[in-house]
């Protein structure tokens, strides 16, 4: 049972000159056991994906290459095999699945054809036998109606179905090793739970060894047998899942684990009686159905009611397509709505034109998800922050002075003012985004997935910053997130959205303790590693995998 499938010995991967460090990873030692799931965990830029690519000989040539060490796969050093030899191994004996199943599949080929490709490359099976095999494979990953799905194109499948098809493809030839590079990161939480289950089941069934790359400790808790922690290209800790999660030795591992928000209810707070700052009544919004001949309309918001009181944080949670971002954009009136009322401190702004809306704009400001795309790359930080106040009549000198104060408030050095967005890290950019939102002294901050693109340690800092600023400036906040751990940590009340409707709303502690809608319960049940923080303190033999 404890045979090693892949033995990584002192692996170093050289980066081209000008990179932030000389080597992507340095002296990595890692043994992948047969029939076990090994999680390689690390933050962005830690080099975890480079390890995966090095194993398959898929490092971006010619600049990134293996600088030293061996990759012993069933006794053969993968680093020393030529391209032809590697092609025989790829797909057949070592397979890989990727983070984003939409882009990992060729959009112009049917699912069946893409599965067929791997069979044609590595086997001499005839057409009819291959077709039977494809249908059996699609069935084995629990895809409904395999015959129809084999004829479908990737865009006709849901995200979860696409990832199932990828898994079917990867396991087609029963490889000895499966490399999964963040395979559930792009999926909704309920889909993620199903995919994790599937990988676990198939892995046990075939005795495959899995190298599972992730940044999410919840996922690690659910799927791993052993864990290796990568920090800036160096392996700082490895061991059994119970040891690493329960008794982390290295300070870096400890800080990472501490940064994961606990899936635990916040202390019960008395219901707020502060005045309403936002009151949405029966908001309607549909997409599509435009043009001369119309089309199918998607109802993004269906009779949505929403209330936000002064000083309160309302969480809007739900899966992708549930309408939560649409709600955020409706409340900020960044887009027109089709019906209903949106009262900002009593004024209905739902029907205001662009020009009429302008004076109300500064009262509601938004923090966006992607700190890279939401800042103008050609503007200096100081100009980004001062632009809003200048539009609303503040003199440039005063606006810039205030912008410098705001930089201090969000924890950035004053020297940041004259620099451009690309000179900052993701977390720093999100701080700039928050400063920009605060520059207009809004009463209401609408944050649309503000920490989703950030590493867990940075996420913790940004959440702390938001909490601090909110308390200091007496802000109200509409906090859109798909991450229930985050929602529990920051929100006073939570609204659960599904298919454009709010299915449940209430105080956070109540929603967590006794969800009334089955969908809310399903969401909480699907959170990966739901109880590992608590479970990790119990002895190993009491634990079972979900």
């Amino acid at each position, binding site marked *: 049972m404890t045979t090693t499938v892949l033995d990584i010995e002192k692996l170093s991967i050289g980066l081209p000159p000008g990179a932030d460090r000389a080597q992507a990873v340095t002296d990595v030692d890692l043994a992948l056991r047969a029939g076990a799931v090994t999680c390689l965990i690390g933050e962005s830029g830690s080099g975890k994906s480079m390890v995966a690519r090095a194993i*398959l000989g*898929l490092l971006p040539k010619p600049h990134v290459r293996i600088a030293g060490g061996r990759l012993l796969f069933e006794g053969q050093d993968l680093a020393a095999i030529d391209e032809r030899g*590697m*092609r*025989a*191994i*790829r*797909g*057949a004996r070592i*397979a*890989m699945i*990727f983070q*984003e199943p939409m*882009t*990992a*599949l*060729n*959009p*112009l*080929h049917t699912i069946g054809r893409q599965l067929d*490709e*791997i069979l044609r*490359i*590595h086997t001499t099976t005839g057409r009819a036998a291959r077709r039977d095999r494809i249908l059996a494979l699609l069935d084995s990953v629990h895809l409904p109606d395999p015959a129809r799905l084999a004829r479908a*194109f990737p*865009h006709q499948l849901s995200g979860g179905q696409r990832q199932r098809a*990828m898994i079917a*493809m990867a396991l087609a030839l029963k490889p000895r090793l499966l490399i999964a590079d963040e395979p559930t990161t792009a999926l909704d939480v309920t889909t993620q739970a199903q995919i994790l289950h599937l990988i676990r089941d198939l892995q046990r069934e075939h005795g495959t060894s899995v190298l599972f790359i992730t940044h999410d400790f919840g996922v690690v808790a659910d799927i791993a047998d052993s864990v290796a922690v990568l920090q800036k290209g160096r392996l700082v800790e490895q061991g059994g899942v119970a040891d690493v999660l329960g008794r982390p030795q290295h300070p870096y591992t400890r800080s990472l684990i501490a940064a994961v928000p606990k899936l635990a209810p916040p202390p019960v707070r008395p219901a707020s009686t502060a005045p309403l700052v936002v009151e949405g009544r029966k908001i309607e919004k549909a997409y599509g159905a435009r043009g*001369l*001949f119309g089309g199918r309309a998607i109802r993004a918001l269906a009779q949505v009611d929403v209330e936000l009181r002064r000083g309160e944080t309302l969480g809007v949670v739900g899966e992708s397509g549930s309408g939560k971002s649409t709600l955020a954009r409706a409340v900020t009136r960044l887009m027109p709505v089709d019906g209903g009322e949106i009262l900002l401190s009593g004024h209905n702004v739902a029907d205001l034109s662009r020009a009429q809306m302008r004076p109300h704009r500064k009262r509601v400001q938004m923090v966006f998800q992607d700190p890279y795309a939401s800042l103008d790359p050609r503007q200096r930080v100081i100009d980004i922050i001062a632009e809003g106040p200048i539009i609303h009549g503040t003199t440039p000198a005063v606006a810039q002075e205030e912008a410098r104060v705001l930089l201090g408030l969000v924890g950035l050095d004053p020297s940041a003012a004259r620099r451009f967005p690309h000179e900052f890290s993701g977390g720093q950019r999100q701080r700039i985004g928050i400063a920009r939102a605060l520059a207009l002294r809004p009463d209401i901050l609408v944050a649309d997935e503000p920490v989703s693109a950030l590493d867990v340690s940075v996420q913790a800092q940004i959440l702390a910053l938001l909490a601090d600023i909110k308390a200091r400036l007496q802000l109200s906040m509409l906090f859109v997130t798909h991450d229930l751990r985050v929602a529990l940590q920051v929100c006073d009340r939570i609204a659960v959205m599904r298919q454009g409707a709010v299915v449940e709303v209430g105080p956070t502690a109540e929603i967590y303790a006794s969800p009334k809608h089955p969908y809310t319960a399903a969401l909480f049940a699907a959170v990966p590693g739901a109880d590992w923080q608590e479970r990790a303190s119990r002895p190993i033999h009491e634990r079972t995998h979900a």
Partner: protein
Amino acid sequence: MRLARYLGHRILLAIPVVLGIVVLNFFLIHLAPGDAASVLAGESGAASPEYLEQLRQKFGLDQPLGTQFLVYLTNMLHLNLGYSFRNDSPVTDLILDRLWPTGLLMLTAFGAALVAGTLLGLIAATRRNSWRDSVISLVSLVAYATPGFWLGLMMIVVFAIHLGWLPTSGFDTVGADTEGWDQVWDVARHLVMPAIALSLFYLAVYARVMRASVLEQVGMDYVTTARAKGQTEIRIMTGHVLRNALLPVVTMAGVQAGNLIGGSIVVETVFGWPGIGTLAFNALQSRDLNLLLGIFFVSACLVVLVNLAVDLLYTALDPRMEL
């Protein structure tokens, strides 16, 4: 069934487009001073006011513009594009006579540009930063910047006059009366230079678009997936990258189909190619308004048809586009 519905829908949408073009052209052309009567009378050398008036009456040019337009539109609905007084022949006949040479020239140039351009772009991208890439980039830059008429004149000087390899102009050898394959060969020899002159600009554009498109596609995840399956590099190129990379080229080609007609006017005039281009040029010089309007109408229809063909091709290439 869905295809039929889609086609019906698109043709319905094309009617207002073509009608709009006809209306616009009709009134734009009549904004210009002078008419066919004054040109004819001027050439005859007997431009007495009475004769002019007689001509105008004969051609219906004395009617108010609105009436003239209504008459024109009614004729058009009967597929009658009017009469070319200058050529003393119905416009429809004149255009139909010239459609084949122009079609041949445009299709040859378009096809050559598309095939050679994508091929060159593919080579440049797969051999990125090599000498091949540099040569292809340089050549396409030069081709992009060279005016078609100048290139045509230079080719005539070099290949027809100095080297004597190819005929200077025309569609076939006058008086040769060739038949069968000899005739094909004769026309092909006449076609070479105009087709090159017309296609080079587009070839350069497609090569550049294709190069960028291939480079973009090569970096996509599905290419990594194909590698992780153990697929060979050649098969990844032909089986995965090529078709994905072609999509922007097809879009580009559809947009440029209209330009190609404009380009053919210049090239046909340089090479004396008896197509719609020379016909339009002559009609313009002699203020043969009916003929001009007819040509505009036919080229508008051609552009609409080509765009429809490109859209159909695009849906065939990309399953994400639904009819």
